[in-house]
């Protein structure tokens, strides 16, 4: 270390600032005059610092990854909602496509088909579960003026839910397909075999009475059959599932445990006789 006298040091320290300011102007001039030199200096500095940045980049990258992960996790919620919605929509489309497919196959087999009568549709809100004589039934609230008849078909957004059994002026009761009293003629879509879907009061109704030799396949789609002219053919019902006990059940497309709005279709069918006529059969005309 160079030892300097105190006055000289003071003078130097007082002088250093102006000198350095002058030097700063000098650097400005150099920066303007010789851009190549500045460029080279910058690159030299960058080269020196590059290893440091490489080391720093590791934890920074980790932090950034964590932040992105958090963002992604946060986005998953919205994504999930979107996907669920999309799934819902696609389910509907799948049902449409499959039923069209089945219809197409049917039409191909027999030409000259008379088109079915156009359907009309009402939607009604489900206001209560159960009640009434049935274990598995829902009550619909109807707007005044909405006309609903007994025997009309109720579907939720995915598939068959049940049948209208009682109609009041402002409400209607729908017997769900899971109820013990429900018997519905169905078709196994793969084999076109007819069967009966009978409710058990459990979540999945059973398949019964399929013709011998055409065992329902696991996962096979089940659609309604027009057999008793209660339902139109081809409404989606569910898929076949064999239980461990060896009974054929149908896993329904419709989500009967969370019904909120049902679509009531009028297919113009009159397969169900009004109860009055069942109770009092009309006398046979005398010959």
């Amino acid at each position, binding site marked *: 270390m160079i030892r300097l006298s105190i006055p000289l040091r003071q003078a130097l*320290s007082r002088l*250093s*600032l102006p000198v*350095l*300011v002058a*030097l*700063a*102007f*000098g*650097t*400005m*001039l*150099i*920066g*303007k005059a010789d851009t190549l030199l*500045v460029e080279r*200096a*910058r690159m030299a*500095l960058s080269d020196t*610092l590059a290893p*440091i*940045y490489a080391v*720093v*980049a590791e934890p*920074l990258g980790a932090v*950034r990854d964590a932040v992105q992960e958090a963002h992604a996790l946060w986005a998953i919620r919205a994504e999930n909602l979107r996907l669920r919605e999309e799934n819902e929509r696609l389910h509907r489309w799948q049902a449409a496509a499959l039923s069209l497919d089945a219809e197409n196959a049917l039409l191909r087999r027999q030409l000259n088909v008379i088109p079915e009568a156009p359907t009309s549709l009402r939607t009604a809100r489900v206001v209560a579960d159960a009640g009434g004589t049935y274990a598995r039934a829902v009550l619909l609230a109807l707007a005044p003026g909405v006309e609903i008849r007994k025997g009309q078909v109720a579907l939720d957004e995915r598939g068959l839910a049940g049948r209208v059994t009682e109609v009041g002026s402002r409400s209607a009761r729908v017997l769900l397909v899971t109820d013990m009293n429900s018997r519905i003629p169905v078709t196994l879509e793969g084999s076109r075999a007819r069967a009966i879907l009978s409710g058990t009061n459990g979540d999945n109704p059973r398949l019964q009475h399929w013709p011998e030799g055409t065992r329902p396949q696991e996962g096979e789609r089940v659609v309604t059959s027009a057999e008793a002219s209660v339902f139109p053919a081809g409404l989606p019902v569910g898929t076949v599932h064999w239980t461990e006990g060896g009974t054929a059940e149908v896993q329904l497309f419709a989500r009967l445990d969370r019904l909120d709005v049902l679509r009531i279709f009028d297919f113009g069918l009159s397969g169900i006789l009004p109860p009055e006529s069942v109770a009092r059969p009309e006398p046979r005309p005398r010959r």
Partner: protein
Amino acid sequence: MAIKGRPEPAPGLLRRLDALARAAFPAATTALLMVLVAAPVGLPSALPAVTLACVFFWSLFRPAAMSPVVCFVLGLLQDLLTFSPLGIGVFTMLVVHGLVLRLRRLLARQSFLLVWLSFAGFAAGAALLGFVLQAVLNWRLPAFWPALVQFVLCVGFYPALAAMLTPLHKAMQRAEDLA
């Protein structure tokens, strides 16, 4: 500050190293901080803000360790790390350093809030100076936004930096008092 009646211990190697470390600490930390801040992380560069805040803080509270030469080097480092015309940072740092030294007697005793306010004034001045110098050096009116952003960043960064540097400064002061 030696207590009377106690002999001054001979300056040994460790003691001298300690003093040297203390003297070099502000400049070294500032340079390190600048390099870290300049790391490409995808954030808007807070480099001028950090440099200005450090130079201001150390010039105010520890001028012995923040000499004009150190300011010059730090300014040059800033100019080389950013892509502004060479010399602007150097000049700005020297001006800030000189002004702070002038106002030191007045500012060093004030509360943090007042110091911060005065720093905001310095930041505004520095941003304006940078704007003017860029306009002159490039002979073209630069955009106004960067200067404003720089000013806001400066003012915003200062409390955090001060909170970080004040304990260090206090610790060094305590060490010096003990020695």
